[in-house]
C-alpha cells in the first residue's frame, strides 16, 4: 500500500488524470446497470424527442433511452478491448518469445508472416477477417475479440521476439539448455519472466487503442450485432441525426473519446513506471 502511494506521488501528472478518467469509466461500466433508468432494448419514449430529465441524452429512432444505452455500452467496449488485447498479447508473446529463443529458419518464417500481417492496415485486416468469417459468425462478440487479437498479435510478437533474443544469449538460458530442458520449459521459466516488463508495456499501450479499433469496426457495421449498444455502432446508427438531435451521437462519441484518452494517458504512465522501475532494478 505504501509502495502504491509512493508510485502515485512519483507518477507524472498525465498518468494521474488518466487514472481518474479510467476509474470513472470502470465504475460506470461495472456499476452503471444499477442506475440505468431503462433497459437498453426497451422502447420507452417518443423517438427523437430531445433531451429531458426523463431521458438525459434523448431518445433514438427506435424509442430507446440513449443514456441507458451509453452506460450499458461501456462494459461491452471495455470487455471486448481488454479480452481482445489479452488474446493478442498471449498469441503474439508465445510466437515471438519462442521464435526469438529458437532463431534460425523458424524465426525467419514467423517474422516474415508477422511482417505480412503488419503491412496490411489494421482496419482493412479487421474487415477482411470479418468478411472471411462469413455471415453466421459476423456480429459475434467472440469474432471481434479474435479480430483485435489478429491485428495485435504480430505487433506484440515483434517486440517479444527482440526481447527474447536479448535474453536467449544469457548464460542462465545456456545452463537450462545444458539441462536439456524443452523449448516450452525454457521459454516459460527462463525467458518469459525476464520479458514481462516490455510485454506489460505492450499490453497497456495496445489496450489503449483497442476501443478505437472496435469502435471503427462497429461504425462500419462489422462489430457486434444489433441491438447491443456498442458505441461505434451507436454512432453509425445515429449519424443521420447529427443536425436534429446531435446528442444521440455525441453521447457515445464523447464516451469513446474520453475512454481512449483516459486509457492512453494511463497506459503511457504505466509504461513509463515499468520502464523506470526496470531500469532501477538493473542499476
Amino acid at each position, binding site marked *: 500500500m505504501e509502495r502504491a502511494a509512493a508510485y502515485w506521488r512519483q507518477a507524472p501528472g498525465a498518468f494521474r488524470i488518466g487514472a481518474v478518467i479510467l476509474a470513472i469509466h470502470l465504475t460506470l461500466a461495472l456499476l452503471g446497470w444499477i442506475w440505468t433508468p431503462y433497459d437498453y432494448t426497451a422502447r420507452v419514449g417518443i423517438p427523437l424527442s430531445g433531451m429531458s430529465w426523463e431521458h438525459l441524452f434523448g431518445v433514438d429512432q427506435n424509442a430507446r433511452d440513449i443514456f441507458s444505452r451509453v452506460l450499458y455500452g461501456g462494459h461491452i467496449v471495455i470487455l471486448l478491448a481488454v479480452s481482445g488485447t489479452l488474446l493478442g498479447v498471449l498469441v503474439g508473446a508465445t510466437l515471438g518469445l519462442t521464435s526469438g529463443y529458437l532463431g534460425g529458419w523458424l524465426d525467419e518464417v514467423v517474422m516474415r508472416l508477422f511482417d505480412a500481417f503488419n503491412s496490411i492496415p489494421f482496419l482493412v485486416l479487421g474487415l477482411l477477417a470479418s468478411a472471411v468469417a462469413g455471415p453466421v459468425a459476423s456480429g459475434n462478440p467472440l469474432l471481434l475479440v479474435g479480430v483485435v487479437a489478429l491485428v495485435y498479435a504480430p505487433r506484440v510478437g515483434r517486440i517479444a521476439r527482440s526481447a527474447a533474443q536479448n535474453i536467449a544469449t544469457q548464460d542462465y538460458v545456456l545452463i537450462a539448455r*545444458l539441462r536439456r530442458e524443452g523449448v516450452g520449459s525454457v521459454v516459460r*521459466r527462463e525467458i518469459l519472466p525476464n520479458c514481462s516488463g516490455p510485454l506489460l508495456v505492450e499490453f497497456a499501450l495496445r489496450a489503449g487503442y483497442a476501443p478505437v479499433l472496435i469502435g471503427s469496426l462497429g461504425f462500419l457495421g462489422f462489430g457486434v450485432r444489433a441491438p447491443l449498444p456498442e458505441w461505434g455502432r451507436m454512432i453509425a446508427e445515429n449519424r443521420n441525426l447529427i443536425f436534429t438531435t446531435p446528442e444521440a451521437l455525441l453521447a457515445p462519441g464523447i464516451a469513446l473519446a474520453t475512454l481512449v484518452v483516459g486509457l492512453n494517458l494511463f497506459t503511457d504512465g504505466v509504461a513509463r513506471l515499468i520502464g523506470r522501475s526496470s531500469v532501477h532494478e538493473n542499476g
Partner: protein
Amino acid sequence: MAQSEALSSGGEPLVAIRDLGLAYHQNQQLNDVLHHVSMDIKAGEIVGLVGESGCGKSSLSLLLLGFRHPAARIRSGEIRFKGQDLLTLPNREITRLRGNKIGFVPQNPTTALNPGMRVGAQIAEALTVHGKARGGEALRRRIVELFENVGLPEPRTLLRRYPHELSGGQQQRVTIAMALACGPDLLVLDEPTTGLDVTTQEQIILLLKSLRAQYGMAMLYVTHDLGVLAEIADRISVMYAGHLVEAAPTEALFAYPRHPYTRGLIGSIPRIDGSRAREGRLTGYLDRREIPPGCPFQPRCPLADEHCPVESQYLSGIAENHAVACRNWQEVTPLSFDDGELSRPERAAASESLLEVSNLTLRYDGGGLMVRLGLAAELPAVVREASFEIDAAEVVALVGESGSGKSTIARAISGLLEPAEGEIRFHGAPLQKKIDDRPKQLVSKIQFIFQNPDASLNPRQSVGRSLARPIEVFFGRGRSEAGELVAKALEEVMLSSDYARRYPDQLSGGERQRIAIARALVAEPDLLLCDEVLSALDVSVQANVLDLLERLRSETSVAMLFISHDLAVVRRLADRVCVLYHGQMMEQGRVAAVFAPPYHPYTLTLLMSVPGSPLRKTTIEPAAREERKPEPQGCAFAGRCPWQPDERCYDQPPPLHRTEGGLAIRCHLPLDDLMRIGLEAEENAPSAAQERKAGNLP
C-alpha cells in the same frame, strides 16, 4: 624511483586533494561515496589508487578530470590542480584543462574510440580542439611522432586505419597517444590494462614507464590490481568504501602493510609461485547498502575492538610518507606465506581416465549452406587438433590468452558446439556431439560454470528455485524433497539455508558465483567445466571462491576442467596444465613440470609478463621480425616467438617432445635448447626470495 624523489622534493604538489567529500543523489537521498579524502600527486610522480569495485576510486578519478555528474553533490573539500580549485572552476575553464593539461586513458579502448573515424583523425581532433595544431603537414607530422612515441608500428599507414582494424593493445596505445597529444602535466589512467592479456599488459606498463621518464608527467593510476601497481607506482593509496585507509611508498606498502585491509588485500592475491598467505586473508565482502558507522572496514577486520564501530578514523602519519587510518595499526603483523604447491600433497597419478579428447578441431559455423555449396570459404578453425585427458577427480587447467580457444573447447565438451573433427570420450565411451542426443543421466554428469555470475543466474528466480530445478530435471524429485537437497547444497558452498529465499540482485558477486557452483554440484557431476570462474570477481571475493574450489578438489571426487588466464591461480589449483595459443596445444604436463625448465617459449613469455613473477625482471628482447602470419599447419606462435630458430616455424608442424617428467612440448627447438633458454631466464632473474625481501613482490 630515485628520479621521482628528485622531482618531488619541495614545492607545492601538482594536485592537492583536501578533505574531499562526495555524495550521489539517489532515490531521494544522498549516498556518500567519498569521505574526507586527502591526497597529493607531485609533479612527475606515479600514484596508484587501489580498491575493490564500488570503493569510489572511479568517482575520484572523474572528479579529477573535472566531470561533474548531475547527481553528484560535493559535501566538502577541494581539488587543487596547479593552484586552481577544479570543483569551483567554471565549465569553460575545465574544458580548456581537460585533454590539454590533464589527459585521460580509459579502461576500455574499444568503446572509448569512435568506431566510425580513422584513428589519425581522432588524434587530430584532440590537437586542433586545444589549438595545438592547425592542420596540414605539421599536424600530420605531430600525429606520426605521437604514434612513434607510443610504439605503434608503421605510424604513417596506421593513422588511416579504423579502430576495429587494430588489436586491443594497439587501441590502448592510440588512446594513450591521444591523452599525450597536448603534453599534459597529469595523466589519469582508469584500469588501463584490465581488459588486456598479460603479455599486452606488460608492454603497456613498459610504455607508460618510458613515457614518464621521457616527459616527466605525473600519473594517477586507478586499478583493482595491486600486482600491476607494484610494477609501476611510486606511491600507493588504498581506498575502502570511500575512505582512504593507507597511503605509502610502494616498497613500504608491500613490505609493511599497516592497515588490516591492505594486508588482507596483499594476502589475497594469488601468487605466481603458488604460495598463499598463511593468515590475514580477507573474509566477507563490502555491502555498499550498509556501510557501518565508524571505521567502514571494522565488520571484516580481525583487529576490531569496541572503539572501531564508534570512532571514525582518518589517515594520520605514522612514518615519513606513510599514513594509515587505523587506531590499531601497531598490531598489524607482516604477512607470511606457505610453500605453494610444495605444501600440497601430490596426488596419486592416473587413477582412471574420465575424459579423453583426441584431435579435436573446432570451427564456428560461418556460412552454413553457402559453405556446403562452395559459395563461401570455411571459417578458419578456432581450435586445431587438440588432445588431452582428464582423469577422475583430477583438475586440469586450460591456460591461454583471449582468443586461444579455451572456452570453445569447453563448449564442445558440454555439447553446445559440434566438433568439426576429432573425438571426445567420456567414461570410455564416445560422447554424443550434440547435447540433445545425450541421455539425461549423462547430461547431469558434465556441468558448466560460467565466468560472469551476474549473467548465469536468472534474475527472476529465487536462489532456491534455481537450485531446485536441476534436481527436478535430473532426478525427478518433487519440490519438498528438493528443498532438503537445496539446503544441503547451500551448506556445501558455505551459505546458510535462508539464502534459498533470496534473489540474485540481493547477493554479492562472490555469493552469486557460489550459488552457480552449488547449482552445478546438485546435479552430482563427474566433471565440472569452470570457464574463467574467478576472473569477474574482486580480489578478496576471488580468494574465497578459490578456497571453495580447493576444498572441492580435496574433499570430493569431482574432476574439473579449469579454464583460466591466471597462471597463479592455475598453479595453486591444478594437477595438470595444458597451454593453448591460438587454438594450438603448445605444452601439457603436471603443474610442477610446466612451471620449471624446460619451458615452451610461449609459456616462458607468459611467465615473464605476469606481474610478481620471479621471471618478471628478465628482459629478453624479442628479436625484431617482419609481420608475418604463420601458415595453419605451422606453429601458431611463429612470428611472436623471441627464440624462433628459422623459417620452418611458419609452415611446418612443430614436433612433439616428451621429457622424463611427463611434459609434452610442441616446438621446433630441440629439448636441450629449451632447457638452456629456461635456465638462462632463471639465472638472469633475481630469485623470488630476494625479490620479496626487497619488497618488490606482492
